[in-house]
């Protein structure tokens, strides 16, 4: 059955957005990522204008992350305190990132910087997570913990020397409030430049730099993504008129259910298994983008707006 999308001005088989929503929601619930880096290009591939695809994606992430956050919160896997500090940092970083992208557009090389940032960030994060989780799976648990303790002692001394140390009970860690704010800012800047929510950057940062337990990372990341996407959806609807309500409803029909299933599955998987799966997806997207920019495209013209 086909439905007409009033803002995208196109018709779509309802099974496509519902199916895509289900798949991306599943990833959301499993890994704590919004899935924008996957869903937006897929929607464009199915004929949705790029501006509408990006904006509507944010709208459906609101639903998926609400569903996912709730599912994780029910089992105590959301660190609200940490999430709030990361949000503050992400908000500040977003402001800086938007200015940076304006400057790049004015200089005329925004697309180049966006694409290269995408490849570098996805590539580095993917490779690091893949190798690290592979090593963790091979090595015995005690030796990994010992190694982690050694790593922490190097970076830990600097982090512990920072002022305003505070305890994050849910994650079982202590950090200066500046650590999540600065890291949140870093992700916010990159997310604004790349035009994504930043979940795939935030998750590794929480795992490797903040040393949070993987299952709490997923819930907390979803909580943070929820607020980021509420802001982005409103801004897109208000300034660009590019949110397609009907498309968002079709997507969220799948993604909200997918997020619940993902959260259930996630609890049955070990942290290393989750990390290596996410690393595999991130690397697959990296390879896809590398192919995209090296192979001659079928069409040399595209609509203005989006990425």
């Amino acid at each position, binding site marked *: 059955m086909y439905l007409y999308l009033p803002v995208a001005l196109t018709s779509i088989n309802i099974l496509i957005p519902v199916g895509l929503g289900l798949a991306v929601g599943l990833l959301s619930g499993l890994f704590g990522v919004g899935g924008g880096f996957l869903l937006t290009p897929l929607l464009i591939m199915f004929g949705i204008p790029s501006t509408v695809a990006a904006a509507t994606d944010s709208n459906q992430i609101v639903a998926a992350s609400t*569903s996912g956050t709730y*599912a994780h919160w029910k089992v105590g896997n959301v660190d609200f305190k940490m999430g709030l500090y990361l949000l503050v940092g992400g908000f500040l970083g977003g402001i800086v990132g938007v200015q940076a992208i304006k400057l790049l557009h004015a200089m005329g090389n925004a697309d180049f910087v966006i694409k290269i940032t995408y490849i570098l960030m996805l590539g580095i994060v993917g490779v690091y997570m893949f190798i690290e989780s592979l090593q963790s799976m091979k090595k015995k648990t005690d030796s990994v913990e010992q190694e982690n303790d050694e790593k922490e002692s190097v970076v830990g001394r600097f982090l512990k020397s920072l002022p305003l140390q505070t305890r994050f009970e849910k994650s079982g860690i202590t950090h200066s409030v500046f650590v999540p704010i600065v890291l949140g800012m870093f992700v916010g800047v990159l997310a604004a430049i790349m035009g994504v929510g930043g979940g795939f950057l935030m998750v590794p940062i929480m795992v490797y730099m903040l040393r949070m337990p993987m299952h709490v990372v997923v819930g907390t990341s979803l909580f943070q993504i929820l607020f980021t996407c*509420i802001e982005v*959806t409103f801004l897109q609807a208000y300034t660009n*008129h590019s949110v397609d309500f009907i498309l968002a409803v079709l997507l969220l029909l799948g993604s909200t259910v997918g997020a619940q299933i993902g959260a259930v599955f996630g609890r049955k998987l070990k942290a290393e298994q989750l990390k290596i799966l996410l690393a595999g997806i991130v690397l697959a997207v990296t390879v896809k983008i590398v192919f995209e920019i090296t192979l001659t495209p079928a069409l040399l013209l595209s609509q*203005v707006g989006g990425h």
Partner: protein
Amino acid sequence: MKKFSVQSSTFKTAACFMLSLFTIYFSLFTDASAMLTAKANHDHITIDFFYHGSTVSVRGLSEPGTDLVIKIASPEGHQLLKQKGKVGGMLWMNVGQLKFENTPNFYEIFSTKKVEDILSNDEMEKHVIGFSALAKHVEITPVANEEEKAKWFDEFVKFKQDSKVYASSFGEIKTSMNANGKLEYYILTEWPYQAQPGDYLVTVYAVKDHKVVEQATSQVNVAQVGMVKSLAGMAKDMPAVYGFLSIGVALGAGFGVSMVFRKGGGSH
């Protein structure tokens, strides 16, 4: 006086000749203009929630021995598109924007025979019939030379054909002679759902000896109705309300599904 009478005689001869010419011309013209007719059936297409394109048929009468060209086009305007190019000799990136002026957003040509075989270049250009004529009609900026313009026009047509809003074909118009010895023509064409709401002009050209001898027009109107129209209007006219509504529904759906899973035992 004589001179005048000669002049008068010459004048009378010339007047008679001109009158004969006008009589012949008008008899032909009035006959022809009454001949070619064009009627688009299903000329008001409504877009509701279940719209997935439509069909449009054009039918009419023409003089026997004429070929026919049917052009369906939206009003001309300008279009801004992102242009891909190679950066550093190996990476495909968006390198700028191109402005295409005097271009319709929708352009379809149907003809009884290949347009280039039945119309002279001058006639094609005069009536903007066919992609080669459209290429000369369009203005593209910024381009360095004619070669570059031709390259980007080809890309423009590829882009539009990919979106199903540009097409050109021949041999699909059905013709037959009716009882009055007139040529009846008919075409049924798919109307793509990608065609945006608006007014479209259907022009039928009767062609003889590589020239357009007559033309007739009809209109197709495509409009959103009901909830589709209300939502599209709300997104443009009340963006803040629309934004809050979108967020509210997403939050509600997220919580709603969570509740269902909780009750169903999905979450534990």
